């Protein structure tokens, strides 16, 4: 099965094969080109954000990487295969609204589905489960501890706060030791404190486990200090580069078509001001 290909806690063996290669790809939805001539490359352990205005195809890019939407021209390689081929080595967190408050299923059970929810059959009662079931339970506890969700993992997920639900879902995405995390707006609908703590959690996982992260964000500020690369999607194309090069007043103003300023705070961190669509409370 899937449980432990790698000892937990040890980073993935170093490889130099890129995790994602996109080569002159074009995506079409309903006959309309969403973006075209997009080329980019993401290496192991890299923390990469996909930024851009609404409706520009950020989620479409993630779906293309997961093989849920084929590209019309060009090519995408993920973990050395065609998209969708190695999805068991990818942790995915889709864009979502919160779980319904009446959902009376414990968080720990949602996390467990990430481990074996795709296997046919119905689980045996715990007493009859044997060694494999014990290993699975240990792995679930371990990954819940890793994201700091032990305090509320046994509460019905519908009664957890947005930040708590997001941590549990990140645990679900991490449970099979993925080499790539694909996260669609994981910080949306979180308050400022939770945005900061969830961002640093994702960064820590990326660093310590050598997991590449491809993350769509609405607001760049909470993750800006952690980013290795930025992909800006706008006007049907993409610009990729390290944050210092892409996140400049000139580049952003050109991409969004509206004046945007990039400032440095006292600690030397970049802050984007005037970014369209960002939540008001994050404009500083």
């Amino acid at each position: 099965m899937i449980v432990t290909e790698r000892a937990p806690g040890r980073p993935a063996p170093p490889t130099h094969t890129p995790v994602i290669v996109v080569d002159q790809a074009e995506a079409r939805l309903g006959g309309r080109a969403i973006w075209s001539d997009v080329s980019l490359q993401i290496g192991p352990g890299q923390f990469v954000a996909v930024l851009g205005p609404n409706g520009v195809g950020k989620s479409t890019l993630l779906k293309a990487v997961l093989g849920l939407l084929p590209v019309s021209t060009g090519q995408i390689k993920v973990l050395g295969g065609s998209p969708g081929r190695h999805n068991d080595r990818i942790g995915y967190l889709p864009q979502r609204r919160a779980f319904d408050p009446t959902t009376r299923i414990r968080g720990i059970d949602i996390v467990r589905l990430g481990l074996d929810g795709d296997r046919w059959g119905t689980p045996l009662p715990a007493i009859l489960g044997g060694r494999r079931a014990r290993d699975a339970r240990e792995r679930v506890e371990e990954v819940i501890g890793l994201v700091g969700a032990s305090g509320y993992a046994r509460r019905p997920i519908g009664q957890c706060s947005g930040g708590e639900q997001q941590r549990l879902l990140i645990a679900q995405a991490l449970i099979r030791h993925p080499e790539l995390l694909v996260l669609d707006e994981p910080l949306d609908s979180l308050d400022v404190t939770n945005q900061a703590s969830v961002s640093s959690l994702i960064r820590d996982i990326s660093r310590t486990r050598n997991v590449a992260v491809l993350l769509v964000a609405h607001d760049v500020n909470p993750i800006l200090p952690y980013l290795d690369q930025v992909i800006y999607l706008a006007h049907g194309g993409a610009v990729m580069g390290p944050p210092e090069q892409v996140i400049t007043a000139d580049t952003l103003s050109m991409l969004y078509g509206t004046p945007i300023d990039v400032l440095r705070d006292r600690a030397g961190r970049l802050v984007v001001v005037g970014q369209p669509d960002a939540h008001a409370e994050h404009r500083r």
Partner: protein
Amino acid sequence: MSSADASILARATSIDHALGANPIDGLAHMLSLQFIQHALVAGTSIALLSGLVGYFVVLRGQVFAGDAMSHVAYTGALAALAAGVDLRVGLFAATVIVGLALGLLGGRSTADDVVIGTTFAWVLGLGVFFLALYTTHSATGNSTANVNVLFGSIFGISSSDARTAAWIAVGLIALLLLIGRPLLFASLDPAVARARGVPVRLLGPLFLAIVGATAAEASQAIGALLLFGLVAAPPAAAQRLTDRPWAGFVLSGILAVASMWIGISLAYAVPTLPASFTIMATSTAIYAGAALITVGRRRGERRRSHPDVSAPEQPQGQAATS
């Protein structure tokens, strides 16, 4: 149905045994009766199926879709009667086909409210049409058939019908157990399940087809109008009593079977009460009991959990349920 009439007579004469002698003898006498045995064979398997399938119906928020099935079951059965074929052929064909169609037309993993609403109003109208055809053109038709389809006749089930119902239930339960885990994944988290290779778009229609077949089974026991007493009440009670998915799944099956056994025994002990009523009354009572037990507990839970938690590192009050 003549066998149903016989069962009322048998129950009426057995009342002395049931109440006069000690309860063990009464129970032994009840279990020795043929129509009770048939009712228990069919009823147990149908109740277990309904409870297990119902768990997912309630979890997926498809109670409305399941409710539409009771109308479809009625129309299917009367169409078969009007055409002069076995009533069950019409029951199963109609419910399974409509289940598949709801799943496919809805397009999403859950069927659309408007699609369901439109479908079942039309279907019930069709049922009235078949009823008119049946009563005017069928010389062999009997007047109780319509009532039996609507309200069930578990004491009128023949030995071979009971065995057929049991085998169909076993087959459907096996199918449900086969797709159980991916179905739970697809129900709670369709986008992630799909990315992980779970055939979400296939499971939706397949599950509604299973719901359809379950409705056809339950119609034979407690009738098309009442089948939701077995498909919705036990899982709703189970989901109040536990928040572990597989424990709830099994508990839902157990509560449905308990409703069936208690309902059959009550109807045997008090012959004026129809079995469909006592089964329904029991499952409703179980749900009401579960709701009463959990109301206080949930109020406590809500007081402890704060809706907005800005510092997740800070440990929360431990969950009240385990």
